[in-house]
Structure formats: structure tokens, C-alpha cells
């Protein structure tokens, strides 16, 4: 099975405090630590496990600037057979629809039985997988937390739904799935693994290579436009206990007692 996995380079929310910049046009990007989007990493691991079971190949692909190459390389160090970087000034500022259109053009240049995306990324929109599937006219399932290869023509997939329940579906190949975290345990990538793939070539394709009209993607083609970033104000917020650790603990124990938190 030939599998394409779409990955994105994102600020690592476990390593950074995400803050709005001074003029509200973006988040503060100085000194941010970036990594592969967590959901995408699970998708790559799942693709590798399927390939190792039934044969085939895994290609990782990303829409981004040249720095996204490091993310592709990291996923190749996990075991992906190849990477493709989709990069062009014209792609900058794309909305979800634009990103999906760029990926669609690239997907059509290959012959992939299965396309995986992460269920969501840093913007929390959870949209690119479903859009890509609709553009390619392929069946789609989101929030996938289980994949079983039934035969050459179909998969059995589990979707994570409300209440910790799992919705089982049969889906025809070729198809597009968006992967939920927890579906597997992604393998660790060491420095040595990354060094091994350091010299592998990662082809870069732009709008011209993909036959994309530059005005249909990027900021020019985006119908959904961010006007401003700001800090959410969801209410009064917590009463923050101040003082030495001892004082804070004393106050907290009083509060716990009053609220029935200590039996």
C-alpha cells in the first residue's frame, strides 16, 4: 500500500508559552521551539506500521517554508521512505481550503492508496483532511483511532466519538483518514536516526510544478481571514493564591475543607 502522510511544522505548545505579539497580528514567534504537529506524528507512525505489515511505501508531505524540511526529515528518520516539500511564496497565508487544494494537486501527481492527515493542528480547525478527501472525491473518516487492513480494496476503521466510545466503519480504498492521537505509540527518533537521513534529497515543488493558479491559494485566495490575535477573556478567572509555598498550602487546605474537598 502506498501511503501519503500530510504533516505540518507547528510551535510546540508543550515547550512554549504561546503569547500574542505587541500589535496583535500574530503570536510572538521569537524563540519559539517548533516540532511536528502531534497528531501528524501519530499518522506517520500508523502509516509505517501498515507498510511494515502489508508492504508498500510511506511518503511524508508538507506545505510550508524551507524550515518545514526539518520536520519532513524527522519523519523520514522514523522510517518514511521519502518526503516532498510544497513551498512557494504564493502559498503563504493560505486558509484551510488553500492548503487542501495544494495537497490535492500534489496527491494527484502520485498514486496513493491511502492518505493520512492529523485530525487537527495548531489552529484547531480540524479541516484539511475532510476538505482534501472531498476535493479528491474519496471516502473520508475523521478522528480515526484504529485501522485494520481488510484486503486490497478496503479498511476497517474505528473513529473516536463522544463518551470514549468507538464508531466502527468499513471504508473503500483509496481513501483519506484523519488520525486521532493515542492510536499508537510513535517511535522515538534519536539524533543518529536523523543523521542517517540528513543527506537524502527532499524535492521542493511550487505552484508551477503543481499546476496551481497562484491567485487561487495563499493570502490572495483565502476566504477565511484572520484580522487579529488576542488573549481570550472567558470570565473573571481564578483567584490566584499568593505567598510562600507554606502560606499557599495553608490557604488551599482551608478552601478544600470549606468546599468539601477533604474527607
Amino acid at each position, binding site marked *: 500500500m502506498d501511503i501519503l502522510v500530510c504533516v505540518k511544522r507547528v510551535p510546540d505548545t508543550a515547550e512554549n508559552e504561546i503569547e500574542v505579539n505587541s500589535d496583535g497580528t500574530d503570536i510572538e514567534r521569537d524563540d519559539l521551539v517548533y516540532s511536528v504537529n502531534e497528531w501528524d506524528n501519530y499518522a506517520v507512525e500508523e502509516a509505517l506500521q501498515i507498510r511494515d505489515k502489508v508492504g508498500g511505501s510511506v511518503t511524508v508531505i508538507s506545505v510550508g517554508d524551507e524550515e518545514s524540511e526539518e520536520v519532513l526529515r524527522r519523519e523520514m528518520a522514523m522510517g518514511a521512505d521519502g518526503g516532498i516539500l510544497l513551498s512557494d511564496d504564493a502559498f503563504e497565508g493560505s486558509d484551510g481550503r488553500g492548503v*487542501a487544494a495544494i495537497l490535492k494537486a500534489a496527491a494527484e501527481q502520485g498514486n496513493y492508496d491511502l492518505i493520512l492527515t492529523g485530525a487537527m493542528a495548531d489552529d484547531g480547525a480540524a479541516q484539511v483532511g475532510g476538505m482534501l478527501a*472531498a476535493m479528491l472525491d474519496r471516502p473520508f*473518516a475523521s*478522528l480515526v483511532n484504529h485501522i485494520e487492513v481488510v484486503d486490497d480494496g478496503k479498511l476497517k476503521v474505528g473513529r473516536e466519538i463522544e463518551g470514549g466510545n468507538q464508531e466502527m466503519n468499513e471504508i473503500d480504498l483509496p481513501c483519506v483518514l484523519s488520525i486521532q492521537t493515542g492510536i499508537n505509540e510513535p517511535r522515538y527518533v534519536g539524533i543518529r536516526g536523523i543523521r542517517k537521513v540528513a543527506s537524502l534529497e527532499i524535492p521542493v515543488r511550487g505552484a508551477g510544478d503543481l499546476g496551481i493558479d497562484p491567485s487561487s491559494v495563499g493570502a490572495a485566495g483565502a476566504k477565511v481571514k484572520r484580522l487579529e490575535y488576542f488573549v481570550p477573556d472567558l470570565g473573571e478567572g481564578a483567584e490566584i493564591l499568593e505567598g510562600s509555598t507554606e502560606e499557599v498550602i495553608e490557604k488551599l487546605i482551608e478552601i478544600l475543607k470549606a468546599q468539601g474537598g477533604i474527607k
Partner: protein
Amino acid sequence: MAEIFVYIPHKDGVADDAALEMVAAARKIDADAPLTALVVGEGTDLEKVCEQAAGACAKVWKVSGEAFAYPNAEVIRKMLVNILPEKAVVLVAHDTFGMDLSPGLSVKLDVPFLSDVVDIEALEGSTLKIVRQEYGGAVSTRVACDIGDGVVINVRPGAFKAEDAAGAAGEVVDKSAEAGDLSCGRRFLEVVEAEVGDVDITKADVLVSIGRGIEDEENIEIAEELAEAMGAVVSCSRPIVDAKWMEKSRQVGTSGQTVKPKVYMALGISGSFQHLGGLKGSPFIIAVNKNPKAPIFQVADVGVVDDILEFVPELTEKIQEM
């Protein structure tokens, strides 16, 4: 203004809370726009849902059939493309069904998609201004979109205050005959119910809940010791289950358990909306997190800005001494 359609999520003959929340969202877009409820399913339960929807919307489109016995988003998407008029404004709940349906629906209707909307600010001409959140709720964004040719909007459950059913006495129109070709490459098989764990966190009065801030599986015991001292039960957020450190049955959140404790102690939990969606009954929330900007502090009653790995063992010790 074009017609606004609200897709009504329902189960066992009862419309979900999100239905009336979306009606409120629709009124915020344009209070005067004609409002149509989309009620899709099968059987006598569906009639009950239609009645409920008719109380809040001027019109109800009922689409009934065996193909809709279970909400398979691929089947429902094809039907919606067949029945919806041009330039429709379509509201869908941003739940596991809406996430499955809406991105593809927007492509097939060739309209923009606004995902996980938490507030609607204004409609200026045909430009709609809405609010979303990014980075797990750490920042908000104000977003503009021209909806003149229609739009699909996924509305976050719980973000809008449900409008009291206005007694609209809506007219129910059966659109089942227009559903059209529903063939698709994905077939629903069954729902596998979540396994019941050793402890039922939904019954606990006091929960000590851990998140990513616990850092390591070995550190879970500091939460267990605190819970023991307090007479509480340990629960967790999603990353702990993803890492296979705790059973799924211990997870609080929309994709885990819905809990209703009196006191909820969130240790090293950032507070994503999916996590908070699993907290019902307005518990007293105490948050301990080393990041003072963690979204959990916005909803907590009391906060402590500290590293849980240092703070919690000291707290446990003091409680044990009592």
C-alpha cells in the same frame, strides 16, 4: 440575507443541548433571517425531535430514511448537497459528527468553512466576523469571512447560551424524497461502547485530575498519594491516556467521561475546551499549573501558579499531618 439552516444533533428522540445553542448563534448572525432546522434520522424518535425543533425554528426540514438510522457523515453530506439551496448558511455542532461532516460539505457546496466558532461578533454587509481559538485555547483570533455565497459554520458546543424555545410553532416539511443518490464508500458497522474501568470517576465527589504537567508515568504516584490523603479519586486529561499511562475510563473530556464532582483539582492540565466539556454541574475548580497563562485559570475558582511536581508532595504532606 440568505436562509440559515441549523443541523440538529439528537439521540434517542431528544435534541442535543447544542441545538438551541446553535439557534442562538444563528440569531446572532442575523436575527431576522429565516431559520430552518435540519432534522435527519429514522423512526418515531425523529418525530419527537422535529417537534422540539419546531419550537425554536420557523421551519423544520425532516429527512427520514433507513440510510440515516446512524449518522454516517459521508451519507448525510451527499444528502445535504442534494437538498440545500444555493447561498445557504449552514450551522453544525463542532462535535465528532460535525468534524466529520463539515469540511467536506463546505468543499462540495463550494463555500467557505468556519471551524469551531466560539463567538459571533457582527455581520457587516456580507462579511461575518467571528471568534475562534488557536493553540488549545491559549490565544483567540478574530476572523472575517464573506458569507454572501453561503458558508458552513461549526459552532463549539457550550460556547453560546441556549435560547429558550420561542414557541415558534414551526412548519415541518418532509424532504426525504429529495435526498437523492446516497451511495458512498464508507459503511457504518457498529458502536463499540467504552470499557468500564476499575473505578467509576463519574460517581466521585472529589477528583484529583492530572495532565501533561505530570511529565512522567512515575510521577503519577504523587497524584495518587494526594488523592488518598484527600479521600479523592484520580482522573486525567487526554495526553495521559494517549501515553498509555492511565486507562481511558479515567479520562475527563468530550472524548472521555463526563464527570460532575463537587471539587475538581486540575494538576498540570492546560484546560482545552475538549477537557472542560467533560466537566458538568459547576464543580469548584482548583488549578495548579506552572504556566500562569494556562487557559484553565480562566475557568478555575482558585489557582496556584507552581510546578505540580514540587507543590503537590508538600500539599499531601500537610494534609496527612492534619
